[in-house]
């Protein structure tokens, strides 16, 4: 078996989800090649080559690959996909954007968002917002797969010294160009990987009051998350959204504050080790999955909690 993994990065550092994706590749078993497609991304190539489980790094360096445009990455991956038995990418916005495009070019049915590897051709993935798990067996000659990073531990980032090979890019796809990026700047740790996440919902009531969520997070060096209702209302930016259509997180502790616990929100946090719910409505569905619940006004409990945490 020979597996191609597509690295996610921002041309300066590897995204941690690549390490989780590599673990899924290791579970399938076989030789692992890591593709770094970017522009002036030498530091990422170096990081990639240092990962123990990677046997070869392919480096494609072209201005057209700088911004992760799906058309260009798909073209590149499509050109080499047939050399592998499996092509894996993280089930992040990056992977979800380009890999189905490769799948159609290869006439392959992609397996999306896997949470387990049963064997080299059989995988488990959530459907219906995680309310069911389907085990599927793929009959395609090349298996194209996106990997849910919270379902696989990260592999060691060091200990290796893989050979690096250059991969030439062709012509940029006509009719698409990158315009701008508006990246949320936060002093808090990354939501996708933080051991503690503090999320606020509609119950927080306003953007100003969302500061009490941030204060609690700061006290524990936690990441900040939000429900869709909180994002829609403008309390928090879109990349804070946890759920079926937002991020999937699985921290050691997840605080759901002023969040009712709709199916779609649970889809993004139900695998957390410990769930704490703070809600004034004892009937809120979040209490059905919470490890610890406090039925109270969040404006009383959250400041108390922040105060008492040393």
């Amino acid at each position, binding site marked *: 078996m020979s597996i191609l993994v597509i690295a996610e990065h921002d041309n300066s550092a590897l995204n941690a989800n690549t390490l989780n994706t590599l673990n899924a590749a290791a579970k399938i078993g076989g030789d692992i090649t890591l593709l770094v497609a970017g522009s002036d991304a030498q530091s990422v190539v170096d990081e990639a080559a240092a990962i123990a489980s990677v046997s070869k790094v392919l480096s494609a360096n072209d201005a057209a690959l700088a911004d992760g445009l799906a058309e260009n990455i798909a073209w590149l991956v499509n050109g080499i996909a047939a050399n592998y038995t499996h092509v894996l990418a993280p089930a992040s916005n990056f992977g979800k954007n380009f890999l*189905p495009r490769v799948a159609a070019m290869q006439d392959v049915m992609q397996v999306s968002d896997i949470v387990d590897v049963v064997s080299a051709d059989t995988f488990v993935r959530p459907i219906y917002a995680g309310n069911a*798990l*389907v*085990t599927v067996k793929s009959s395609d000659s090349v298996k194209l797969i996106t990997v849910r990073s919270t379902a696989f531990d990260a592999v060691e980032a060091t200990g290796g010294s893989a050979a690096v090979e250059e991969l030439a890019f062709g012509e940029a796809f006509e*009719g698409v160009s990158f315009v701008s990026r508006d990246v949320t700047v936060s002093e808090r740790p990354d939501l996708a990987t933080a051991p503690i996440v503090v999320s606020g919902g509609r119950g927080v009531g306003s953007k100003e009051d969302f500061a009490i969520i941030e204060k609690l997070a700061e006290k*524990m060096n936690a990441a900040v998350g939000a429900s869709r209702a909180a994002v829609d209302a403008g309390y928090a930016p*879109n*990349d804070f959204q946890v759920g079926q259509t937002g991020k999937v997180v699985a921290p050691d502790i997840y605080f759901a504050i002023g969040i009712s616990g709709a199916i779609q929100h649970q889809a993004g946090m139900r695998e957390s080790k410990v769930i704490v719910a703070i809600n004034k409505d004892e009937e809120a569905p979040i209490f059905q999955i919470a490890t610890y619940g406090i039925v109270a006004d969040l404006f009383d409990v959250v400041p108390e909690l922040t105060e008492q945490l040393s």
Partner: protein
Amino acid sequence: MKVLVAVKRVVDYNVRIRVKSDGSGVDTDNVVMSMNPFDENGLEEALRMKQAGIATEIVAVTVGTEQSQDTLRSALAMGADRAILIKADEAPEPLGIAKLLSKVVEQEEPGLVILGKQAIDDDSNQTGQMLAALLNWPQGTFASKAEFEGDSVNLTRETDAGLETIKINLPAVITTDLRLNEPRLPKLPDIMKAKKKPIDMVEAASFGVDLAPRLEVVSVSAPEARKPGVIVANAAELIDKLKNEAGVL
């Protein structure tokens, strides 16, 4: 410009689904069905394009059983001009759907195809990207804003780090995120009018594309239930539990 909007009939988002006890699938008998929420955003966007004089005709298309006519009627009630039902008894996989839609695009020659970024039943998030690849068109996925300017679109996409804007030339495929717009609710007279609008029916098999499934469903299971938790009285007790019982703080 003609706009093609793909819609799917799915189990309503408020339904808590149940896995069949024999592990063969999810029980969809007698549950409320509705249009995939993301597709409502897609249709709403097309309707706004028409109001703004950018779109001239809106065609809703779905792949499904006869019952999917309900979803097309909802699309017509929202304001689509006409609808196409591609009849298939076994639901094709996203790859098969993308192939069927690419044939419809050949026939209809729209300037834009809008799809939801994912369907809330199988959560695959593939069809739009696959369709774009088959047509060799640019794609604008997970869109939260679309500004049309001549033959191109400035498209704002939701990413894991915030927002990103790309410029794509038409014809193109757009997939929607929920924040793109707020879909309208059809009014009673529109629902009545929709009954008279045409729905073309075509057999999926007539398109001559390979719809054989590539993924065999081995089993469907329910996720492990979480252990029931406890209610604690206050912040102090919570901190104590997190530290001494769960050992996570």
